[in-house]
């Protein structure tokens, strides 16, 4: 049973971490609280569905298509809608929720409100910590963890990563050092969308797809950001683990109360806001090196 808890916690934690890291990056560099972030995840799932079930393409083609289309969608949205009114923070906040709702309605329009699913990439089961785990599950967790590691390497070891970290710390000074802040912000928005799309694409075979699947991950991502500290990458990952663990603990300890798990992350958010409003890792974008 404990193995079961660990495996499912690891799974939710890595999905949440992927979403929360992208959300934090967007906030840190572009200074946007992007409520449409998980809508990109939902769109990615639908692109996979279209590619595999409607067009009969192999799954990996669907994944590539989903990631590239979603990145394109996010960058165009940022350039055309968000960037021109970047200074009006509240407007941007409302704008992003508008984008999310438009995407949701478009999916209703094109695919209807049915529950969809896509085939798995690999078949079969293995036994892990005394739990029967499908290969798809293992593959998903591995891909997510490797992707997170790659993002960390990108941020810490490359020129682009340095540009992103510098812009996140002080946008104005980065600008005076000859760095185009709007270019860095656009690229960061692209990276964040790619993370959301990869998460959406890789978990699509495990979950059902419907136009409203962006809402509950959004509340979780918001709870993680509040818990970890808005804009902090370390906080996002730690927050993802804590929220995933507590959600799964609720299901594990009170199986009848499984419906309560969504509310639980919100409860954590409220408690954190009351006790330590800046979250675990302070106000600003966390740096580690």
């Amino acid at each position, binding site marked *: 049973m404990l193995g079961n808890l660990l495996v499912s916690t690891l799974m939710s934690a890595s999905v949440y971490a992927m979403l929360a890291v992208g959300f934090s990056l967007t906030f840190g560099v572009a200074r946007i609280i992007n409520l449409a972030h998980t809508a990109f995840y939902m769109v990615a799932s639908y692109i996979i569905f279209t590619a595999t079930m409607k067009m009969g393409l192999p799954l990996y083609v669907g994944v590539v298509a989903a990631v590239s289309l979603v990145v394109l969608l996010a960058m165009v949205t940022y350039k055309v809608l968000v960037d021109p009114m970047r200074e009006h923070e509240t407007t941007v906040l409302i704008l992003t929720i508008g984008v999310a709702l438009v995407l949701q309605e478009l999916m209703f329009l094109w695919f209807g409100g049915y529950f969809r699913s896509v085939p798995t990439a690999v078949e079969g089961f293995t036994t892990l910590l005394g739990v029967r785990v499908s290969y798809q599950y293992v593959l998903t967790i591995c891909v997510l963890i490797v992707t997170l590691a790659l993002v960390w390497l990108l941020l810490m070891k490359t020129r682009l990563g340095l540009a992103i970290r510098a812009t996140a710390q002080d946008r104005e000074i980065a*600008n005076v050092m000859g760095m185009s802040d709007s270019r860095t912000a656009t690229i960061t928005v692209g990276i964040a969308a790619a993370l959301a799309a990869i998460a959406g694409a890789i978990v699509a075979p495990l979950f059902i797809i419907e136009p409203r699947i962006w809402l509950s991950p959004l509340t979780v991502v918001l709870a993680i950001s509040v818990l970890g500290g808005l804009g902090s990458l370390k906080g996002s990952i730690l927050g993802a683990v804590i929220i995933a663990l507590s959600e799964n603990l609720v299901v594990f300890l009170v199986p009848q109360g499984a419906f309560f798990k969504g509310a639980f992350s919100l409860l954590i958010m409220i408690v954190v806001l009351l006790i330590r409003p800046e979250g675990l890792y302070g106000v600003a974008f966390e740096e580690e*090196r």
Partner: protein
Amino acid sequence: MTVPRQQQAGAGAETGSPLLEVTGLTKRFGGLVAVNSVSFSVGRSEVVGLIGPNGAGKSTIVKLIMGILRPDKGSIRFRGRELRGMAPWNIVNLGVAGTFQNTRPFRRLPIIANVMVPCLAPRARRRGEWVKRIEVKARDALEFAGISDLALEPAYQLSHGELKRLEIARAVATEPQLLILDEPFGGLNPSESDLLAKSIRRLHRGGRFGRLHSEGMAMIIIDHKLSYLLRIVDRVLVMNFGQIIASGTPDEVVLDSDVIEAYLGKEEMA
């Protein structure tokens, strides 16, 4: 009228025209005219000092040139190109770099990364340079500024004097043609000031500093410590109430009665 002027500027860019030409520059903050129709120019490899009492508008001029503030009137031409309306990063990439009165490092990045950031600017970057190569270049800039032994410390641990030197290393890292230093000696003790004055002169003389090179970089230096400033500069502009009230060689300016009244009379000669 615009066309012949641009041609003139374009042709002149290669010959003897000034590197920086500021004409009729005006900036208002509400009712206060911080910079009032200021015109001056800086020649190639010329070092110009800008002095004046507090609130005379010196730092505002720096911010206008660097694109941080938008002028209300006037033009700023660098190598014949109008800088007005450009974003700061764009101006830096044309070859202007500045340090500011208040040092603002990336506090949580190590010193070396602080200097690597300007090395990423398109101007300073060569194709296919990886982080390691940039790091070597950033180290040269730190070496030049004399703080290479602190490369791995996070920026928040530096003293004020070291932060001033970090600012200079960051500005030099973009290999500018025009370097603007706003109060580089501010808050430095005499020995630190001596070191900095030497670095500035070395930079102006030009040459190679590891991977960085400069060829008679032009400079605008603002400072209150006249004893250091006047030793370095070729020419001095004196500002008061947003206007230039005198200009000349350091010897001439020191004797100018307007200047003595407006500025030197109140300030001790350090």
